[in-house]
């Protein structure tokens, strides 16, 4: 074990990026972030191996991996989650799922609302320190003002939301990979389900009548 705490590798491909970070307690040993919309499946594992090497660690040194579960690009989320499940089996360590919106909120003062673009005039919303934590959900951009008032905002669609609510826009406190690894570290030792993508949207498919 690293002197500062258990080694955790965090990664996320839920949007048009590929990012990873290796942390030990409060220390960030290595991190990487690339803006790529395609090719994440080819890029992710080489990036993880490079981050491990830069941090002077091997796969076998890891106490757990943290993986971004979205919501976001369905295929992107599955790329990271499937890899994380393979890593967990290979190492016999837990893979811990971390939502994109809670990762965006990591290190920021509460109360806070994180807003991510969901396209089609919708956003993914998660509130922090605003009473009951309802978890991430999908809602119309136009519903945000009555819902949130002027609370501080973060996330990729915070600017668009702020134009409607008047809330202050906070920049991220941490790189996404670091946030995912930190949250996973905080959950280590608690009973965690296997990581599963957080879709928040049903598959785009309509039932077909018989005989069609």
């Amino acid at each position: 074990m690293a002197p500062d705490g258990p080694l955790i590798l965090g990664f996320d491909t839920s949007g048009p990026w590929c990012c990873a970070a290796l942390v030990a307690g409060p220390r960030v040993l290595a991190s990487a972030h690339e803006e790529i919309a395609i090719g994440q499946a080819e890029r992710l594992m080489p990036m993880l191996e490079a981050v491990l090497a830069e941090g002077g660690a091997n796969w076998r040194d890891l106490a757990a991996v943290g993986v971004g579960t979205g919501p976001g690009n369905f295929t992107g989320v599955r790329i990271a989650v499937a890899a994380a499940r393979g890593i967990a089996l290979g190492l016999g360590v837990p893979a811990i799922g971390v939502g994109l919106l809670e990762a965006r909120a990591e290190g920021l003062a509460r109360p806070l609302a994180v807003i991510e673009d969901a396209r089609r005039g919708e956003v993914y919303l998660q509130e922090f320190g605003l009473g009951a934590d309802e978890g991430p959900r999908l809602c119309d951009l136009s519903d945000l003002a009555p819902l949130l008032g002027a609370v501080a905002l973060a996330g990729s669609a915070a600017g668009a939301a702020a134009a409607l609510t008047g809330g202050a826009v906070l920049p991220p406190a941490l790189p996404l990979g670091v946030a995912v690894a930190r949250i996973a570290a905080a959950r280590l030792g608690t009973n965690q389900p296997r990581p599963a993508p957080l879709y928040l949207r049903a598959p785009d498919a309509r039932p077909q009548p018989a005989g069609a």
Partner: protein
Amino acid sequence: MSATLTFLGIESSCDDTAAAIVRHTPGQPAEILAEAVLGQAALHAGFGGVVPEIAARAHAERLDLCAEDVLGRAGLGLGDLDGVAVTAGPGLIGGVLAGVMFAKGLAATAGLPLVGVNHLAGHALTPRLTDGVNFPYLVLIASGGHCQFVLVEGAERFHRLGGTIDDAPGEAFDKVARHLGLGAGGGPAVEAAARTGDPARFDLPRPLLDRPGCDLSFSGLKTAVLRATETMGGPGAIGPQARADLCAAFQAAVADVLGAKARAALAAAGETAGGVGVFAAAGGVAANGAVRATLGAAAAASGVRFVVPPARLCTDNGAMIAWAGIERFRAGARDGMDLAARPRWPLDDRQAGMLGSGRKGPKA
């Protein structure tokens, strides 16, 4: 390389999540130590076919369960494996991607070689897994997504002699079953209904039998069944006997076409490879009794041994991927962590594509 090899195979290119462990010592029959298939029929019921996004969602959360299951039932740890083989295409890309990423994560961390396998190579090499067939041999891959005659010359040498110019026969079976109200994934349902039917009552076409070569077509045949139904007032108006007769006529037409084109393919194999000793069938359509009969007759007419793997190894499975992985590994193949998932990946990449084009490239 003469050592015993034990490979885990992972398959997720359509609607079955599958894993298996295969062990092989040169000179001995291959052994399937454990196999698991988690089907998704219930998830896609009512959608009129496999919904890619639904399939991908299921694969992503089942691959590890499948792999753990076969390791447990084989009584093996990861340290007992010599490699991980995974379907890297062709197929529904979301599922293939999930499988490839799972396999990469597992192989990298367990310190095992990774071998990406063409799903069709898995089908094409299955006769060697089940029956120890020697190269070269002729195989018909006939399933819901594919139909081609392939001369298998080596673990990585496939020569396509012909294939469908439109639909796959399994696709035609599924569409006919759905049209006649027999449910989705209806190959077995059509076969069951055909048992009490008279194949001579409806005169259905035998597409492309008037042409030389071993290309096939099934789209017109499917349409002919639909038209015959409409002339009787539509699928809701026909009785059980007419339905059985239609199923029998359709199945007989598919079997006739495959049998006749198998003869042509065997002749072509004779010219290309100087003759083959074995004709094998693979893919879900090979599980159909009437099809097996005409294919077997074609083999017998050419004096060639006919091999059909057991049904569970004709449909999608992990054992064929593990086996193809062992074959590729012995041929020196290793894939890196940048292994790509390919929605389209013709088995024979030395010939021009015959089906599909554009950005994704040819389908077959």
